[in-house]
């Protein structure tokens, strides 16, 4: 077959099969979502990445959730009847578990009928997270926090089999619906743990029936159930509405900004609002974007390469897109990108002036243009906007912006540090992951430091190698980012808390006794003006001490089709698809134009 004939044959087959397989008008509503990374499995205790966590949260639920319609981020009850009662000393939390909630039907239950959720299910699920044989990836959340749980874990690390029947003092079901946690020390962030997929409720019968294959047999109490009951590691995940989902209603209350925009119009409707969900795993930007433009996906983050054509003025959508009824959502992300110094090296540890000089020489404005379409927020210190501890009007005196005076000041500080014009300084290595953007960022850092006479060598590493280097302190500087686990400044400030040094979260090994003391005090304080004042003090201290070169807090740019209703950009996406709705009529009309 000659080439043109082959092309014609393939084309004809494609059109034939496309028309054969094209879905006709579906009954009910379907959401089409796209994610950019493979989903590992559906076991809550291993859901340590955003993508797996989001999938787990479609099927499983926790005691608490983030109120989707409130900012700043606020916790609300989910499988709990109400927020817990907390003892005066802040150590005992008592929850009433919702009555009448049932697990999805599965062969693991008698006659295949899902049974009622009880407080005991949470005791089991949290013990599972602590089980040393399973090595759940969210153990850090509870490590050292619940009375008796560490002892229980340590005991079974030595024994061949874990006994879930053995009682743990701080984790008890007082009756069928009452759950009590006793903490070993005050931990104000504890409640956030109960909104994270790691602690969601699983049924013991299901875990025991499927054993190692449990991660592919998700059976939760959530709004959606996986189609056919089995999760396959493929590029599409199908869900259907959970037929036994409880009477959970669309909220009627929320922050003013959402009320004004009409997000509460569906108040009182039974959730979820759609019948089916199709999650497409599309790892590359181009196909994800093209699928969105064709209307095959309801919303996507704007890829960097398409940014200028989609959002020409960096604030509003281009007219072509507006005509297609596409909408843009911009929201700041709870994160920070930074260049860390290795504080084990005397060069950086004992030389605040050198760190300050390097921070001043780094032109953050130009970097923002190059790597973030000029849309990220310049980081003055460690805490991002949107949470208590962030100081909107504060400007760090050591935040370089490429101005002449910044460079002059940097040169002066460098001379005072003992390295006039960089003389006497060794070549400083910069380690980063081995992808193109990281390399460009490394080269940019190299150029910035060259302005004051500092030589930088960029070293690219595969991710495990970079982690090893950071952990074994075999780096001088490295570029990295941090995203919030929960909306509390503690989650950021702990990154420079001395006792958290690597392999803990403090990869740079910064260890300042004064800062540590403040952190220790703040970490056991309940939310309030006093704690906020302390957070601000630490945040300011971080800006002046320059333990890292603070870069930016990124913003997310998401576009969605007009037919997708109730979508709000959030840092905590677990469970939000139950609120989404699809305007089928508008979708039909819009698709004709795409």
């Amino acid at each position, binding site marked *: 077959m000659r080439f043109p004939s082959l092309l014609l044959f393939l084309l004809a087959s494609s059109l034939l099969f496309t028309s054969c397989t094209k879905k006709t008008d579906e009954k009910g509503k379907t959401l089409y979502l796209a994610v950019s990374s493979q989903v590992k499995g559906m076991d809550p205790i291993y859901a340590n990445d955003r993508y797996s966590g989001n999938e787990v949260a479609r099927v499983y639920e926790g005691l608490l959730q983030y109120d989707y319609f409130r900012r700043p981020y606020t916790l609300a009850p989910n499988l709990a009847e109400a927020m817990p009662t907390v003892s005066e000393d802040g150590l005992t939390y008592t929850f009433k578990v919702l009555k009448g909630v049932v697990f999805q039907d599965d062969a693991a239950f008698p006659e295949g009928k899902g049974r009622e959720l009880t407080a005991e299910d949470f005791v089991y699920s949290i013990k599972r997270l602590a089980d040393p*044989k399973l090595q759940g990836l969210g153990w850090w959340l509870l490590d050292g926090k619940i009375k008796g749980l560490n002892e229980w874990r340590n005991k079974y690390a030595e024994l061949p089999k874990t006994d879930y029947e053995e009682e743990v003092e701080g984790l008890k079901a007082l009756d069928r619906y009452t759950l009590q946690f006793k903490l070993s020390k005050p931990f104000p962030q504890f409640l956030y743990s109960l909104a994270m997929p790691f602690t969601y409720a699983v049924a013991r019968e299901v875990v025991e029936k499927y054993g190692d294959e449990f991660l592919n047999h998700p059976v939760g109490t959530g709004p959606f159930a996986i189609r056919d009951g089995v999760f396959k*590691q493929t590029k599409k995940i199908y869900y259907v509405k959970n037929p036994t989902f409880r009477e959970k209603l669309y909220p009627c209350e929320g922050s003013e900004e959402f009320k004004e925009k009409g997000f509460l119009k569906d108040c009182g409707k039974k959730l979820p609002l759609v019948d089916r969900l199709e999650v497409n795993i599309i790892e590359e930007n181009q*196909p994800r974007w093209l699928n969105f433009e064709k209307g095959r996906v309801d919303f996507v983050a704007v890829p960097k390469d398409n940014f200028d054509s989609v959002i020409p003025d960096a604030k509003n959508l281009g007219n072509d897109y507006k005509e297609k009824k596409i909408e843009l959502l911009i929201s700041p992300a709870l994160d920070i990108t930074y260049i860390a110094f290795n504080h084990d090296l005397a060069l950086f540890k004992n030389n605040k002036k050198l760190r300050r000089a390097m921070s001043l020489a780094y032109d953050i404005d130009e970097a923002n243009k190059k790597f973030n379409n000029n849309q990220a927020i310049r980081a003055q210190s460690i805490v991002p906007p949107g949470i208590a501890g962030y100081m909107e009007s504060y400007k760090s005196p050591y935040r370089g912006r490429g101005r002449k005076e910044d460079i002059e000041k940097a040169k002066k500080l460098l001379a005072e540090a003992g390295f006039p014009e960089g003389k006497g300084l060794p070549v400083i290595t910069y380690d980063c992951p081995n992808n193109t953007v990281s390399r460009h960022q490394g080269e940019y850092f190299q150029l910035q430091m060259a302005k004051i006479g500092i030589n930088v060598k960029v070293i690219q590493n595969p991710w495990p190698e970079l982690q090893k280097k950071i952990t074994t302190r075999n780096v001088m500087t490295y570029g990295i980012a941090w995203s919030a686990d929960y909306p509390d400044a503690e989650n950021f400030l702990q990154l420079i808390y001395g006792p958290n040094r690597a392999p803990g979260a403090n990869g740079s090994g910064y260890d300042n006794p004064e800062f540590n003391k403040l952190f220790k005090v703040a970490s056991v304080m309940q939310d309030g003006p006093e704690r906020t004042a302390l957070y601000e003090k630490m945040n300011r201290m971080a800006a002046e001490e320059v333990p890292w070169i603070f870069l930016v807090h990124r913003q997310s740019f998401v576009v969605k089709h007009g037919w997708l209703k109730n979508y709000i950009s959030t840092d905590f996406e677990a469970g939000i698809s139950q609120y989404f709705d699809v305007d089928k009529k508008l979708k039909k009309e819009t698709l004709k134009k795409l």
Partner: protein
Amino acid sequence: MSLTSYIIRRLLYVIPVLLGVCFLVFLLFNVVSPDPTISMLGKHATQAQVLELREVLGLNEPLHIQYFNTVKSAFTFDFGRSWSTKQEISEMIKSGAIPSATVTFPAFIISFLLSVSISLFVAFYRGTFFDRAAVVVCVTLMSISSLVYILVGQWFFAFHLGWFEISGYEEGFPDVVPYVLLPILIIVVLSVGPDVRFYRTIMLDEIYQDYVRTARAKGLSEKVIMFKHVLKNAMVSIITYVVLKIPFLILGSLLIESFFGIPGLGGITLKAVNSSDYPVIKAMTVLSAIALIIFNLLTDVLYKVVDPRVQLK
């Protein structure tokens, strides 16, 4: 030596080769590489957790026990579960091999038939305009990066003209067809350039042999010479080239699968390396080594079939 005893002897070679492969993999990943537990535990890892996880994964066992376990898994094909996804490795390979093969096998067959036909044609018209044009087209096709074919193909044919699906995959026939046609076409275009050049060289080598001159002197038609004599004699080289490509068909194509959303094996090894997922790396290395040995053997046996003069020693 009979064909059977030759095959048995060659299959026995699998044992030392596997031992060697296991040793290399073991050395590279258990001795030299970074501690996998750090990347597995993520950003909140503590020293105590690292130690516990090492114990659970058996990384605290003496090295000779760890090596023995590596060898055992290679010979029993029981590779266990992935450290990163916790999925059964045999299941991962099984479910990935079919989508990969769905794209690569048709592409392989089409490009083989197409390339051999074109190369016979240009060899027949050697030195003419057709020959020179074919060489220019082949070199041009080879000079363009595969990424360009993918990006342009996806944008123009799938998005702009709507002839194919942009990306995705559905299990089962005929649902899968619209998803795999464009990737197949791109692989064919990518393969045709180098393949035609290679086959053409082989054909031209044969065309100038004495037996071809003798055949012409005997008055045989050019058609008979090309198909009966030249093609048959060129088969030994063609078989070597083609059969050794087969194991890689199952492994899929990283870029194609990634861009077209095909849940194949294309990225499995790369992802495993990036996440220090040793059981998967071990499984893929061992299976690739076995596949290479078997297909090498198949090549040798096929030599004997197409050319009885070949002696197997």
